[in-house]
């Protein structure tokens, strides 16, 4: 047993030997170059944990399985490698559900391993039995229940392949306890046969040609970039393409960083709380090239008013996204990088869209994101603005969900890819702290800022233990408005200020709380002290938490109200 535990170097040696399912799992993880996993043990995974003991793969004991899977998501987002999670059967598995759904929505590569009761008692309501296969089917890219030990290593290989190729996503592997202890062999590592899974990477050249021709005729062209560009690592090609054709660029929430935020052609984030310039450009464009975004409703607003006069190009690796929400004239099913490379090879005359450029860049100049500073009250936007300055826009910013998330997207200008980790599709409160932990594990040398709401932080704050144990130098910023701010804002705007259950009546003392974990902490209440405290925090070598007491009733603007179109933004200029 120890032979595999200590010397896992050679899968070749190992494949000739019989070993337990648990050892096969460990060998298979090594084959996939996994060096870190997040998890929580329990009865059904005791054999797996026994094999993991001192096996050389680092395991992070989280304080809740939801924390484990959000950590895996943060890790996956900044490294581009699959995040690996392990949980026991029953409650361990169900605690992964939110994270699976989140990873599915935001296309993050996750391999989740769950224990299961032994095959002979499956279906008997055995202790800690739950049908995680049934539960996770709609929220995973694929899932497997391994019924026989000899399938195990191939299933693991397929899982990593499926999770990390095509449109990435979570894959769950359910391993019954008796399978983990049965003896079997590793598979030969030969090519996988997945006839039902053949992601198409290469673009159709005729369609690319149509794009170039369309560009030559367009008068108001626009590039919309989504996270697909990041997944495909296509930011360089994107920059080149945008510059060659002199195209203005807008981004989705999740696409931030794919195109440099300070670039003169960048109009900012589009969508519900996007910039006026970006949304207006989407409304007015006559030729929209969407690369790697899925036309989410928070981006499009009322679809009737989305790019109503545009020829729409949609480049996406997932054919099912094309035509799903928005009618498409030129579809390209391909990897974003290859599509952009193909477009760049087609070199064509470059038009000067002088009038259009003047219009969009004029909007950009005239209608930036705004807030009204006040003498001594800290405005939440100022926190993000200061953090941006203090970190030269080069930190990894991880957020929770709510107003602070939108302010981070608006006021932290992302220069580089893979520096922005946020829960976009599912909008999962509680995501921030664990995702920041995962991001810091993935990028130990980067400054990681966790920008957290006071409410969301309290959903997963138990993971502070992991910050301490692993000595992760995360800078945690609680944007403390004493409320479920985003909910309160909607109640203010759409429910006659009836603040039903959105005000936090009592708050813990966050400085003491951090102290209880042994984490240095500051509280800042005055605008005049903000920059000093934030500087001290950012310069802290280890972890630090800052309780930023910000204006309680601040709202996120500008905004497209639900049901409204892109051209109907409110709060574009100071109210």
């Amino acid at each position, binding site marked *: 047993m120890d032979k595999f535990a200590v010397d896992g170097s050679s899968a070749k040696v190992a494949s000739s030997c019989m070993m337990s399912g648990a050892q096969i799992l460990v060998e298979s993880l090594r084959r996939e170059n996994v060096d870190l996993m997040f998890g929580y043990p329990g009865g059904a995974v005791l054999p797996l944990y026994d094999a993991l003991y001192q096996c050389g793969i680092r395991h992070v004991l989280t304080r809740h399985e939801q924390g484990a899977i959000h950590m895996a998501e943060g890790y996956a987002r900044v490294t581009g490698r699959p995040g690996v999670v392990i949980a026991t059967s029953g409650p361990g598995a169900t605690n992964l559900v939110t994270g699976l759904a989140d990873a599915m929505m935001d296309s993050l590569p996750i391999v989740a391993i769950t224990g299961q009761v032994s095959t002979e008692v499956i279906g008997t309501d055995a202790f800690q039995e739950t049908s995680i296969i049934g539960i996770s089917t*709609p929220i995973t890219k694929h899932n497997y229940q391994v019924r026989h030990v000899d399938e195990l290593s191939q299933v693991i290989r397929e899982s990593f392949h499926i999770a990390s190729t095509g449109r990435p996503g979570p894959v769950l592997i359910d391993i019954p306890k008796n399978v983990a202890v049965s003896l079997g062999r590793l598979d030969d590592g030969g090519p996988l046969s997945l006839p039902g*899974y053949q992601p198409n990477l290469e673009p159709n050249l005729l369609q690319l040609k149509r794009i170039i021709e369309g560009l030559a005729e367009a008068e108001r062209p626009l590039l919309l970039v989504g996270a697909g560009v990041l997944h495909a690592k296509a930011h360089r090609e994107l920059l080149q393409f945008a510059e060659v054709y002199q195209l203005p660029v807008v981004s989705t929430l999740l696409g931030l960083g794919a195109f440099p935020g300070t670039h003169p052609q960048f109009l900012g984030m589009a969508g519900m709380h996007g910039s006026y310039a970006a949304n207006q450009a989407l409304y007015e464009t006559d030729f929209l090239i969407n690369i790697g975004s899925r036309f989410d409703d928070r981006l499009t607003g009322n679809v009737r008013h989305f790019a109503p006069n545009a020829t729409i190009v949609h480049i996406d690796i997932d054919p099912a996204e094309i035509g799903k929400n928005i009618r498409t004239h030129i579809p390209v099913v391909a990897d974003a990088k290859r599509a952009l490379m193909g477009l760049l090879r087609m070199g064509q005359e470059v038009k000067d869209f002088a009038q259009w450029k003047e219009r969009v860049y004029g909007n950009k100049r005239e209608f930036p994101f705004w807030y009204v500073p006040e003498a001594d009250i800290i405005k939440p936007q100022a926190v993000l603005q200061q953090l941006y300055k203090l970190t030269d826009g080069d930190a990894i910013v991880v957020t929770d969900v709510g107003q602070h998330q939108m302010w981070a997207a608006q006021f932290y200008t992302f220069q580089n890819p893979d520096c922005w980790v946020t829960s976009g599709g599912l909008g999962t409160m509680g995501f921030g702290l664990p995702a920041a932990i995962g991001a810091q594990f993935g990028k130990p040398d980067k400054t990681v800022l966790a920008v957290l709401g006071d409410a969301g932080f309290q959903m997963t704050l138990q993971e502070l233990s992991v910050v301490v144990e692993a000595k992760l130098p995360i800078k945690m910023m609680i944007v403390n408005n004493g409320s479920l701010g985003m909910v309160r804002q909607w109640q203010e705007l759409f429910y006659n200020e009836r603040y039903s259950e959105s005000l936090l009546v009592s708050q813990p003392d966050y400085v003491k709380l951090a102290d209880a974990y042994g984490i240095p902490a500051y509280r800042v209440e005055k605008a005049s002290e903000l920059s000093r405290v934030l500087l001290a925090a950012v310069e802290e070598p280890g972890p630090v938490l800052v309780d930023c007491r910000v204006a309680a009733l601040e709202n996120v603007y500008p905004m497209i109200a639900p049901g409204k179109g892109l051209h109907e933004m409110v709060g574009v200029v100071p109210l």
Partner: protein
Amino acid sequence: MNRILSVLVNNRAGVLHRVTALFLRKGFNIQNITVGSTELENQSRMTIVLSETDEVTVEQVMKQLHKQIDVLKVSDLTEEPIVARELVLLQVNSPLNSRSTLITLIDPFRARILDVGRDTVMIEAVGKPEKVDALIALLRPYGILQLARTGVTALTRDSQTTQEIARLMRSNALNL
């Protein structure tokens, strides 16, 4: 008109669940679905009849099915030359004195009596769904005590190429 999709899938535990879960999640309506073995041991064929007819929805259904890793091929048979059949079993009131009329009545449907009792008979018929509908309508006045339909299963005729998703993608909106 209903849409008939033929879906080849891996013959594995849970595949039917994946497909029905997909329909539930996406809010697509299925009129009926049949699953059974095929000429290949490791594959099953699902025949799905959709009441949805608008193009966008049908296209989404097909693409979403195609995204499933256990789905090997999705074909829309609606416009194709096919043979589509369904089996129905009916238990009908049939007093002895009028039973011979009933038998003449069902004869054009090539229906058969499978089981006879003192007051009832069990009838079996195979045919296109419309024919099965007609037979049921005809027998309703006699009093149908029990009825079971299998749902449609279908194959394309001869070697006619079907309008499979790959070709659809090449010819119009879905260029791969």
